[in-house]
């Protein structure tokens, strides 16, 4: 297993390098890093910056220069803020990491529970209801769902209850002056996490249900039933455990895609994470932020793929990796 992990890590290096070059080329082709500076109407300054940043060189040469600086920790200076890019991304990663962690936790728990319930009560009214809801969840755009949640759970109650502040907040992860893990944080977290997980729960619960049904119809489950093993034990200890492998694989692969959902969710809930940073940088054509941002996503995708493969091997003893 360790050898497999090391090999996969080594194989990932050229993948990430190729991805980084494609990203660099695409971003450089699409944006002018000096667009903002050109507003100063000082051709001399623009020329000096062009030479200083090596923008007059061919793209492969620019890429080589950038990569050298990137791996040594110098991620450049944002053209939007004039600040160092690395701390900007580090600051944005923390709220995003929190959101992703909570979304994964809640998504897995809720989707897993729905999957087990639906499979065990196949074709019941509850199963049909959850199936219908999952289709709605998959089809519903995150931004629309977020706004509906805000109206229903934060703004709406204010109109009926005599209170000066909403029960659930929808701006940022803390109120001004608050910090840390406390009730204020939870009240801020509920709506964005719900928004982020709705589509994931809907799709994961379908995968989980199918995996659970496969598992429940297996020979060893029939054997266990014939041996008189208690129903609860069959469901949770045998069927659910074996259904976990394909389920976790899907979760791991989808985890990287959370970045896409974050762009919308962080915008709606004014959370200063990676999604907001991406949007702000995109609008400003800030290539020195966009390129490392995309690199982080690329690395996350590769890492999640690796985790998916590993989790499959760990959870299903029939699978061996080499």
């Amino acid at each position, binding site marked *: 297993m360790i050898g497999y992990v090391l090999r996969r890590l080594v194989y990932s290096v050229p993948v990430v390098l190729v991805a980084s070059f494609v990203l660099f080329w695409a971003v450089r082709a699409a944006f*002018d890093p000096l667009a903002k500076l050109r507003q100063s*109407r000082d051709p001399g300054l623009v020329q000096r910056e062009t030479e200083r940043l090596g923008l007059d060189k061919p793209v492969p040469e620019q890429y080589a220069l950038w990569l050298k600086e990137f791996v040594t920790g110098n991620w450049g200076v944002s053209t939007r803020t004039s600040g160092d890019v690395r701390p900007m991304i580090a600051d944005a990663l923390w709220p995003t990491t929190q959101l992703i962690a909570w979304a994964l936790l809640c998504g897995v728990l809720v989707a897993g529970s729905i999957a087990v319930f639906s499979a065990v009560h196949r074709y019941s009214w509850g199963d049909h209801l959850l199936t219908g809801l999952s289709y709605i969840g998959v089809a519903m755009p995150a931004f629309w769902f977020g706004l509906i949640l805000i109206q229903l759970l934060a703004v709406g109650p204010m109109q009926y209850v005599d209170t000066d502040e909403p029960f659930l907040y*929808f*701006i*940022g992860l803390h109120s001004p002056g608050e910090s840390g893990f406390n009730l204020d944080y939870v009240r801020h977290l509920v709506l964005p996490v719900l928004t982020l997980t709705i589509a994931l729960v809907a799709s994961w619960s379908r995968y989980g249900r199918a995996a659970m049904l496969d598992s429940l119809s297996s020979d060893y489950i029939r054997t266990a039933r014939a041996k008189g093993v208690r129903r609860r034990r069959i469901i949770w200890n045998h069927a659910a455990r074996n259904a976990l492998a394909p389920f976790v694989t899907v979760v791991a692969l989808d985890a990287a895609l959370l970045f896409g959902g974050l762009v919308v969710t962080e*915008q709606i809930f004014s959370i*200063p994470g990676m999604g*907001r940073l991406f949007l702000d940088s995109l609008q400003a054509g800030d290539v020195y932020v966009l390129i490392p941002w995309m690199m982080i996503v690329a690395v996350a995708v590769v890492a999640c793929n690796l985790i998916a493969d590993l989790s499959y091997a760990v959870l299903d003893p029939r699978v061996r990796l080499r």
Partner: protein
Amino acid sequence: MSTTRNTNRSRLLAAVLGLVLLGTLGCTGGGSTANSQDPVADVPVRDGGEVVIGAEQEPACADWLSTCAGSIWGDWLMRRPTIPVTFDIRKDGDDWVAVPSDLLTGEPEVESTDKGMTITYSINPDAVWSDGEPITSTDFAYTAEQIRDGDNIFDKSGYDTITEVATPDPKTAVVHLDQQYANWRMLFSNTYGVLPAHLLEGKDRTATMRDGYSFSGGPWIIESWKRGTSVTLVPNENYWGDKPHLDKVTFTFIPDTAAAFQALKSGQVDALYPTPQLNAMSQIEAGLPGINSQVDPQSGNLEALWINNDAFPFDSEAVRRAATYSIDRDALVDRIYGAVDVEDPAQSFLSPLVSAYASDSFDQYELDLDEAASLMEEDGWSKGSDGIWEKDGRQASFVIHSLAGNKRRDLMLQILQQQFADAGFDVSIETTTPADLFTKVAPAGDFQMGLWTLVDYFPEPTLDQPFGSANIPTKTNGYSGINFGRVSIDELDPLLDETETELDVDKRIETTKAADKVIADSAASIPIVGIPNILLWNEKVGGTVSINPAEGPFWNLEAWGLAEQ
């Protein structure tokens, strides 16, 4: 005068970013327009407490001299409350004028000579920085040199004419310019102010100020700036003027307009200054329970159709005039802004903020398809079988360039497209990013017609920048200047030059109005509307609340407070 010298930062900012930046003045609650001279609200307040305000944009940096400080929200949130300026913009009758601020003891002495002009500022003896150090002439000299000689400076207009800032004593600054500069009141005012030399001299100014700074020469001091989250202001205990009533003001960043409105409705924020998008206007029209509002059409924002006078088919004055007669600007403005009671189109290329200088020359153009047809026919055009004007085998087809993502502007473009089609023009729409439009397409003249907004926030005329022939961007001048329309009218340039250098206000008004009329007569471009500004606040907020078109909605934040119950 060179193009760069004449380029007012506010105009440049607007042209380059094409953003609808706000600032204005007054009206009523509930969205109806009223005289903006009077404060909309003047509710008794108690001392203490905190107010949270939703901010639509976050500034990229707080080094106000640098190109990274382009967002007007940076001005409103941090610069204006903390950086002292020489002139405030205040209402005088129907006009907004620059009056000496409490940084000075009075109006500066201005001496004009053949070699240029000299401005002598007398600094208020009580004026001090937040650390107790006096504000001195050295601060003026430091600021001027930073702008004049610095790299990465957003705009050097006026400062590049400074030859010397003499400091005969700590409270007297004598600024020498090498030419007449009519807009001299903008120096150490407008978007820059005066910076503390004793704290910045010899240091990397950008590094010190970029992420917020701990000094202040205004009523507030920046307590914190949490990137992506909020800016918090607290009172500057050493401020020599009126002290704030509130203990704290927090600006929380809410880039999504819909979420911002919900936050105001639910009480998460106490005030908003939203961009006048369609959803904002419809919500105000529908009524916001418990929310006061001020909608003010007297803004510094002028939305216009900018015509490339060098590009077919608009290289013909007849076609430009015909196009102007082809659109119903009254209907356009009513449909877009009727919800907030803005009904009249702009009749000048000067925004409502500088209305003292504006003529109403464009009122000669109303929807008149017969007049449009007559002009086209006189110019040798005839309508083809598809109803489109043709001449020499070419159709009267053109593209309107604009910025993507602005719903209000999208609707305006669609209406314009229909109106032009009815008049026999074939119009298509192309939208792009501000960076693309204002650093590539427009400076290179790669457009026929464009829709974007210019913003003024200093009450001085600036027709020279978009219409003076010296300000046409070319390869030779490094694409400097914002006369993107390549307007070059022989009788216009002398009038614009006179406007830039004439120190007598009455004469400047006269020449500016004359220039405005020349622009209208040749239909060099088409003004559409002065975009209104909107301020919303809940009943928790008291004090004197009103929009200032030049200084933004928070110009008198120290007068805000928690309303007495």
